[in-house]
């Protein structure tokens, strides 16, 4: 058991730090520090391409597909230096971290050749279509339908919470391809071009006044017959595999964003005197401890040799960070005091901390509510009997 890095790894750190810091100080200084999903999208697409041009866009992938076959330690280092340099949130997060690994794991050679280069090059931006309005936490309750017509899949239905769909080129969709099937059976995992007449994307405004999520409507939307991953009816297995990729090295990058938020709270607390309040101090300490434990939890999770095994640290990660960030939002408001209730400008737009407070209310819901996480932990992690399903 060892936390430190080797000399070679530290040399790798120097290399990527130098490259990242140069870009953020010069050519891409205008997008330094952007954390949210929707700001300066075009410049950030250019940044994706700049990363790709120097083979930094997906370093964990095999060299054949534009990666570096980087070790875990190297990926950890890159994530740390990426954040330390203030490089912006990755607009192609879903392509690089979810779509790509899924295609690598389950796709055919043709699919790899067709899709991976665009992702690696930062020219194909991806989003995901899982949730549906009537399904909620019951992910397998898919009503969107896909039928094969000649050499094309024809898709009808509706997805919801498709974040960034309005800026994306591709969407992966889980659709019901077997008439009359129920639950996880009879689903197919399709990759579709968004820019087509059959797909309509409608943004959903959230509690913070912004719109990062969308409803996506499919009316005779089409894709070629070979756009499926796996086999028809096998989509649930693929989708579940993909969800597992959500807990990869990118969590460390996410944590760097959390670090910035906590640092800002600490700065404000020192400035406005809240840091003298022993009750605030306890909560700052708890936040710091929680963030550190997230980091070491992620390292434990990533250090596993058998990545497919059910692992406590991996199973508990989502509820842990979502709850931590929700509590951080409340701390932020308590540190700000009444000033936190007032926007700086004339629009309903919020600075980092009030936005954290509002947006973190989504964190405990999307991507599996805290309740669903607890069910999963109890049933998969502790082996407790499943809750009886109803038949309404």
């Amino acid at each position, binding site marked *: 058991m060892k936390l430190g890095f080797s000399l070679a790894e530290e040399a790798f750190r120097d290399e990527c730090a130098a490259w990242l810091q140069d870009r953020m100080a010069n050519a891409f200084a205008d997008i330094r520090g952007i954390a949210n999903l929707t700001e300066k999208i075009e410049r950030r697409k250019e940044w994706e391409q700049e990363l790709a041009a120097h083979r930094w866009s997906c370093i964990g992938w095999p060299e054949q597909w534009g990666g570096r076959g980087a070790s875990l330690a190297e990926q950890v280092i890159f994530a740390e230096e990426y954040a330390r340099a203030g490089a912006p949130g990755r607009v192609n997060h879903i392509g690089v971290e979810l779509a790509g690994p899924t295609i690598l794991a389950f796709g055919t050679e043709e699919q790899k050749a067709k899709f991976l280069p665009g992702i690696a090059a930062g020219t194909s931006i991806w989003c995901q279509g899982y949730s549906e309005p009537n399904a*909620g936490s019951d992910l397998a309750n898919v009503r969107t339908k896909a039928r094969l017509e000649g050499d094309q899949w024809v898709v009808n239905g509706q997805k919801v919470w498709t974040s960034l769909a309005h800026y994306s080129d591709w969407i992966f969709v889980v659709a019901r391809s077997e008439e009359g099937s129920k639950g996880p059976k009879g689903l197919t995992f399709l990759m579709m071009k968004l820019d087509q007449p059959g797909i309509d994307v409608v943004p959903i*405004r959230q509690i913070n006044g912004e719109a990062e999520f969308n409803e996506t409507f499919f009316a005779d939307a089409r894709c070629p017959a070979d756009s499926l991953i796996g086999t028809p009816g096998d989509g649930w297995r693929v989708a579940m595999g993909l969800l597992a990729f959500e807990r990869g090295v990118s969590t460390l990058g996410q944590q760097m964003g959390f670090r910035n938020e906590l640092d800002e709270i600490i700065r404000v607390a020192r400035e406005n005197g809240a840091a003298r309040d022993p*009750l605030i101090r306890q909560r700052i300490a708890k936040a710091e401890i929680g963030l550190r434990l997230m980091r070491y939890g992620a390292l434990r999770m990533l250090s596993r040799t058998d990545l497919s095994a059910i692992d406590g640290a991996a199973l508990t990660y989502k509820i842990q960070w979502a709850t931590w960030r929700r509590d951080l939002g409340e701390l932020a408001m308590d540190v700000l005091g009444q000033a936190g209730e007032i926007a700086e400008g004339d629009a*309903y737009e919020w600075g980092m901390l009030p936005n954290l407070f509002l947006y973190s209310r989504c964190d405990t*819901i999307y991507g599996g509510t805290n309740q669903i996480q607890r069910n999963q932990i109890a049933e998969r992690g502790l082996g407790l009997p499943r809750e009886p399903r109803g038949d309404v």
Partner: protein
Amino acid sequence: MDFVFTDEQVMIADTVSAFLVESATSERTRAAMAADGLDRSLWASFCEDLGLAGIGVPEESGGVGLGMVEQAIVAEAAGATVAPLPLLGHAMLVRAIVAGGSHEQKDTWLSRLVSGRIVGAVARAEHWQDKGSSLSLVADFVPHGASADLIMVCGEARAWLVDAAQPQVTRIGHVTMDQTRPLATVTLTEARVEELPDGPAAIAAAEVTGLLSLSAEALGVAQEALDRTVAYSKERIQFGRPIGSFQAYKHRLADMMVLIEQARSAVYWAACALDENDADAWLALHAAKSFCADTAFMCAANMIQLHGGIGFTWEHDAHLFFKRARSIQTLMGSGNHHREKVAAMVLGEAA
């Protein structure tokens, strides 16, 4: 000793609740949110049709002369609908004038306030410059301050009435997280003011009224958040069952009810203690404000969480309750502040 509503109180509660449920609709609230957070036509009919704006005013001054229990009943109903009304500042101002105003001031202002012809607000300033009949100061975070016609400004033990229409008064209405009760910065630059003869009495009346109103409002928010979530949980099907049949979901709703029942005891304990001049009245107010505000926040946060994705959208009303609950927590002293007061009392320390 009879700790239930009288028949008259039940009638008031039913009346005000029916009025607000029918009139303070989500559509109207959202229209007010897009403007200055005040539904003037709703306020007019609250004052004229319902006639409950004069609860704190003796009958001889044009009011209905009721007590704090009735004040709490109205605030509770207003909280339950997150109504965009200037009730908080109104109640504080009216009771302050009754408690500390001169005869002339009562004659001049009370009937206009009670009839809804003018809107009132209360502000507090740390520093001020007093040149006899003119006053200069800056007061932050004034609820509905940008919409008010008459503002009572409090500075330590003194209180002045200010006509907000004069050019020596500027108001900046801020975009506020809770758009149903926006905050304003009020600046007086050698403004004409009239001082209330009994400043301490006026300030105390405003303060107890404000704390009780916020507590009762919080109770309304909490109860409505629970009721709406219970209703949703019986309709919404997941995994083939109404989500309200899942035990963990049930237990969260039960926890909300446990807190709300305590919050209800807190509000009406405080109201009775004020009406009966009980020695524990301040203890009750500190208890009510801290407990009810935290309860409202917990319930409104659960309302979002237990509605799932729809709960965090702008289109659903859950965020209105959530933001109101948060603003109640912050207004007039945090929960920790009020609990610290309680601690000092029970530990026998001087105030």
